């Protein structure tokens, strides 16, 4: 049961985005950089992308859930710490061990199947470039919009996309929270009548299916 209403959530989201402006532009640029590395892998790209994702998850956990949402949602601290934990996991696997997907030094995109790279790129591009305007078109007023790196849904879908394009069993560990959030976020969106977030469960299931199918290929 959600104990706050749509207008309250949108008001909170708007004030949160206003307070952070122009961090949205920086998040967009960094997201584009990550997409570029997915498309054209570079040496050290894995570590850079993992660092970006880790910062994004820790920020959403601390800045969005623990600092903002906790005032209206008693479950927010739980979500906040889960996001922080996911950020630490990404930092551990991707940044320190250099294994976002599988073997040390594996390259994003190039190490997975072409289909997985395309699906992953599609999911990440949807989160980064399509979710904000879609939300606006579906009635969420500016600046109460989802943003990769600042709000949970876009961050979860973007991360899932990158993991689909990576390789190895570690992807499952790192994809668990993003998939779970996609499903839960869809439920919350339904309860709050936010149609722009209705695709979240679909993205989560698509990512799960892609992980499963590409995971069967020999590494």
């Amino acid at each position, binding site marked *: 049961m*959600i*104990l*706050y*209403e*749509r*207008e*309250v959530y949108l*008001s*909170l989201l708007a*004030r949160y985005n206003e307070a952070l402006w122009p961090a949205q532009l920086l998040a967009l640029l960094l997201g584009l950089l990550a997409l570029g590395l997915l498309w054209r892998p570079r040496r050290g790209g894995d570590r850079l992308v993992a660092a970006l994702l880790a910062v994004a998850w820790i920020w959403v956990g601390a800045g969005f859930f623990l600092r903002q949402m906790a*005032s*209206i*949602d*008693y479950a927010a601290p739980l979500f906040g710490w889960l996001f922080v934990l996911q950020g630490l996991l990404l930092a551990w696997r991707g940044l320190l061990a250099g294994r976002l997907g599988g073997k040390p030094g594996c390259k994003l995109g190039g190490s997975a199947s072409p289909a997985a790279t395309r699906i992953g790129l599609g999911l990440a591009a949807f989160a980064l470039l399509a979710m904000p305007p879609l939300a606006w078109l579906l009635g969420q007023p500016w600046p109460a919009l989802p943003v990769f790196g600042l709000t949970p849904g876009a961050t979860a879908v973007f991360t899932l996309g990158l993991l689909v394009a990576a390789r190895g069993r570690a992807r499952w560990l790192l994809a668990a929270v993003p998939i779970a959030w996609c499903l839960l976020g869809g439920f919350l969106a*339904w*309860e*709050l*009548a936010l149609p722009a977030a209705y695709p979240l469960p679909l993205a989560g299931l698509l990512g799960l299916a892609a992980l499963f199918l590409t995971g069967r290929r020999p590494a």
Partner: protein
Amino acid sequence: MTQERPEPTRRALLAGLAGLALPAVPGARALAAGPASVATRPIPASGERIPVIGMGTSRTFNVGDDPGLRDARTEVLRVFFEAGGGMIDSSPMYGSSEAVIGYGLERLGMQETLFSATKVWIRSQAEGVEQMAESRRLWGLPRFDLMQIHNLVSWERHLETLRRDKAEGRARYIGITTSHGRRHRELEEIMAREPLDFVQLSYNVLDREVERRLLPLAAERGIAVIVNRPFRRGALFERIGDAPLPGWAAEVDCENWAQILLKFILSHPAVTCAIPATRQVAHMRENMGAQIGRMPDESLRKRMAAAVEAL
């Protein structure tokens, strides 16, 4: 999905502007005349009378720090008190609701008719003490009129604290709550053996299971009853849609469906008050109109239930 209640009719809005119009039914006339004529019921433990319509704050008052939304809820509070409202019920579970109530009370000034009710909602007894102190701070009150144990959480431990708080003046009455129709058997056992001033439970024209055991037990044990979810969180309005008011509505001075639904609840002899929640001034005026005028008898109660069931 969020359930929406239909906007009040123009006539109802005019009637709600107390004193500016002379509506055609006694309920609205009495409301316009001021709070002196509102119905009250005694708390069995003391005989103290409280208005039969209170106010819930779950969801509706959880608006965070938004100054505009906080001011809008303060306006709802103002209308509530102008119409003679008494009980405001909240809980630490409801996010920022307690802080928003405190914000409103600070701006309106402390109201003579306020009957403050909140809950303790945490497992640890020691943390419960801290939580209740925080609630007093948020409301800006030295003590609560009623402190309840939320949904039976750690009720044995908190009941000890509540009894001590009552003896030492930090709460005037103590109680225990449930909602959604859950854990009724356990609540019944507690009501049967523990001395309580209040219980809070869900009851409405379609969810009537409490009529069989809990309401008679409350009457027998002298426990005041607060009814939450009188509109099933708005779902009853969705069911009713734009159905016209039945002809018998005028027999009990009801101008709208909200008042019919509330009077159905209030006409049960074991009920002390109902606590509908709203974020709209117009809906608050409709709700408060239910404490005015005639109440249905048993025969009309049956017709009320049949009418809603048939929709």
